[in-house]
């Protein structure tokens, strides 16, 4: 287990090789090097996990300290890695799913000029993500937290010459930094309160979580809310979700890895990791529940109206993360983590499948210009279908089990209620609907694509800009997915099916046992109804599955059977449609309230106030100059004036000497 640091080393090597000597390597080398590094890291992760699980439950939490990172007077922050089942699970997901996506990317990015940069950034991302999940203290967590933000920025900006990519990257980074600000403040308050930033105590020094008892509710609420800001920003929850859909400007593997499978789940990981704090802060939990619920429903609705396939998936990610937040809020941390895992499988699968389709069409991402791809890229069709069924919560796909845990918790756990449960159910139906809407639009019906037009014109896909492609005419055939693209689809497809079987109430308890050392009550929920496959659970499960099927059915009707109906509905409810199309005007509002007003303020301060300050300084200088000029006026050049001045001076001296009584 002490070898866990190797999982950091391998991605670092992957980065270093690519960044420093990538230029001298063969064309495909960057992807291969990075993938091999990921494989090695994954192997270490498996080893570490096995090592961990061999220990008795109460010892499954080990602090591996590499060195003292920030030692200052009265605070020592180590570069320490905390290995327990939760971080081990994240470690496996990040390296495992990451490895698959890396392999996929070697195919997807094979023609990209910026491969080196791409894989270097991807490696940095994995490194940062691993730091995030393995950190044994909040400050180090923040390093990973900021690091993934940076990597996300760099990867979104992969096609940096496109203004929208550059803009999306900046937006993502700024929103994430806002989250970092919140987290930092939370940490400062935490440090002020507890005198440490360690999660868990060591020796005689207690950690943060050891000191929760006896701390004021208000303080805890403040700390947790501030941390929550970071979680909300990173996980794309309302109201800080705006960056995530834009982030689809990056290459599709990036969307799969970062904006679906790993980075965005960091918020959920934080809630799970810091559960002792959150459990002690009921107010914050309420906030989390409702933020999660709003996001879950709102994003699902937006997913319905998207025409870009990656944006559909992006909103679905936001929505699914809303589920996880809701789960954490009602205390079902285990369910949140469970859904996090299955979501990583099927969402990565969905993205990669979408990527195959996009790749096949030379970068076309717009659903209205797809269609009929089932026969063209059957592998994508199959993978998207499997992933769709999983996210729609159709048994026995993985999403069914993990989502139902959450829906059940929303209904029946101590903090749950019927409204939350119904919202969760409804969102499940919506999810099925919009995912399959995309599925049907892309893979069924008539082929609406035009490879000539897609070439270069389409945003998002990624080789080089159009003008550099002009010298390769005739390359207008469908790009068939290569083996290295299909392999990850297959593996993820299997995982998307079986991933949920780790916890089938009443049948398997694998996942519950696994998380037991982390949470006081991973799936016990302190529920009045009880759990473990009780009647209420299966009732909810059946209803949820039916809702999902209904959603799929509706999508089939609207987009395959009766396409005219869909357009009719869109015109019928034009207002609603526009509201969804404009994303509830949230982006517009932010643009006005923050971006434009900030610019105006900056300009006013710069051109107005700062100039005024400067003029004041120059004004002082001008006063001296004026005084000097005035003195020159007095210096008339007339001897008699000078003599008069001497007389005046004499009077002055007399005043001080002879008439000293007068002046004293």
């Amino acid at each position, binding site marked *: 287990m002490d070898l866990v640091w190797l999982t950091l080393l391998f991605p670092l090597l992957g980065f270093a090789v690519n960044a420093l000597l990538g230029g001298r390597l063969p064309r495909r080398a960057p992807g291969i090097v990075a993938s091999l590094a990921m494989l090695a890291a994954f192997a270490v992760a498996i080893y570490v996990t096995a090592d961990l699980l061999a220990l008795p439950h109460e010892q499954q939490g080990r602090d591996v300290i590499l060195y003292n990172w920030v030692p200052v007077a009265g605070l020592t922050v180590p570069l320490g890695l905390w290995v327990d089942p939760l971080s081990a699970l994240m470690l496996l997901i990040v390296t495992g799913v990451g490895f698959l996506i890396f392999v996929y990317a070697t195919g997807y990015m094979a023609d990209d000029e910026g491969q080196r940069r791409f894989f270097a950034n991807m490696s940095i991302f994995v490194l940062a993500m691993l730091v995030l999940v393995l950190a044994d203290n909040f400050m180090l967590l923040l390093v990973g937290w900021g690091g993934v933000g940076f990597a996300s920025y760099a990867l979104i900006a992969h096609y940096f010459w496109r203004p929208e990519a550059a803009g999306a990257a900046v937006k993502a980074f700024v929103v994430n930094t806002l989250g970092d600000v919140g987290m930092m403040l939370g940490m400062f308050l935490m440090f002020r309160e507890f005198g440490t930033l360690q999660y868990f105590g060591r020796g005689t020094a207690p950690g943060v979580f050891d000191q929760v008892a006896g701390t004021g509710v208000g303080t805890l609420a403040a700390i947790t809310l501030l941390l929550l800001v970071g979680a909300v920003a990173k996980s794309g929850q309302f109201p800080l979700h705006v960056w995530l859909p834009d982030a689809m400007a990056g290459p599709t593997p990036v969307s799969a890895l970062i904006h679906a499978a790993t980075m965005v789940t960091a918020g959920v990981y934080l809630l799970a990791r810091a559960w002792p704090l959150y459990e002690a802060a009921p107010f914050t939990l309420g906030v989390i529940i409702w933020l999660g619920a709003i996001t879950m429903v709102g994003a699902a609705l937006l997913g319905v109206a998207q025409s870009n396939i990656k944006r559909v998936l992006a909103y679905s990610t936001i929505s699914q993360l809303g589920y996880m937040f809701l789960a954490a809020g009602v205390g079902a941390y285990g369910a949140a983590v469970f859904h996090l895992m299955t979501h990583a499988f099927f969402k990565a699968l969905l993205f990669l499948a979408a990527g195959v389709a996009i790749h096949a069409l030379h970068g076309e991402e717009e659903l209205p210009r797809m269609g009929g791809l089932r026969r063209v890229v059957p592998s994508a069709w199959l993978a998207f279908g499997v992933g769709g069924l999983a996210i729609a919560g159709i048994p026995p796909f993985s999403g069914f089990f993990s989502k139902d845990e959450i829906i059940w918790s929303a209904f029946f756990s101590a903090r749950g209620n019927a409204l939350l449960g119904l919202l969760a159910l409804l969102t499940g139906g919506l999810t099925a609907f919009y995912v399959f809407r995309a599925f049907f639009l892309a893979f069924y019906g008539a082929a609406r694509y035009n490879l000539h037009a897609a070439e270069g014109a389409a945003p998002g896909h990624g080789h080089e800009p159009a003008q550099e492609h002009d010298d390769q005419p005739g390359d207008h055939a469908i790009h068939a997915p290569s083996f290295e693209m299909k392999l990850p689809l297959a593996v993820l497809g299997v995982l998307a099916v079986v991933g949920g079987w780790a916890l089938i109430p009443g049948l398997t308890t694998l996942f519950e046992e696994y998380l037991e050392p982390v949470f006081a009550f991973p799936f016990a929920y302190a529920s009045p109804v009880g759990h473990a496959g009780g009647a209420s659970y299966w009732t909810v499960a059946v209803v949820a599955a039916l809702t999902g099927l209904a959603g799929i059915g509706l999508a089939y009707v609207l987009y395959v059977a009766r396409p005219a109906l869909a357009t009719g509905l869109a015109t019928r409810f034009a207002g609603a449609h526009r509201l969804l199309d404009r994303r509830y005007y949230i982006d517009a509002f932010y643009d006005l309230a923050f971006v434009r007003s900030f610019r105006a303020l900056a300009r006013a301060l710069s051109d107005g106030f700062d100039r005024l300050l400067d003029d004041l300084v120059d004004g002082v200088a001008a006063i001296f100059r004026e005084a000097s000029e005035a003195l*020159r006026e007095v*210096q*008339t*050049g*007339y*001897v*008699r004036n000078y*003599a*008069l001045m001497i*007389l005046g001076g004499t009077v002055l001296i007399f005043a001080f000497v002879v008439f000293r009584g007068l002046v004293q």
Partner: protein
Amino acid sequence: MAPLAYYFILSAILFTTGVIGVLIRKNPLIMFMSIELMLNSANLSFASFARYRNGLDGQVIAFFIMTVAAAEVVVGLAIIVSIFRTRASVDVDDVNTLKG
């Protein structure tokens, strides 16, 4: 012997007259004569104080001052003449190219 105050007041009046002369006259010669007046008021003052104190040093000093004044006259006239030669005017108000 007249009281000292008389001498003193006279010398003060002479001095003031000299000062005013310098201030109001434009001709350097007359200004210079006013300055001589100031010096002579000092002479008067010295002499009278010396007499009052029964000492001689004050009167000796008066001689010194006279010598100095004579030297000044020489230099002053030389300068004034030199100016007069180039400008044909000795009005001090015309001499103000240097100012500011």
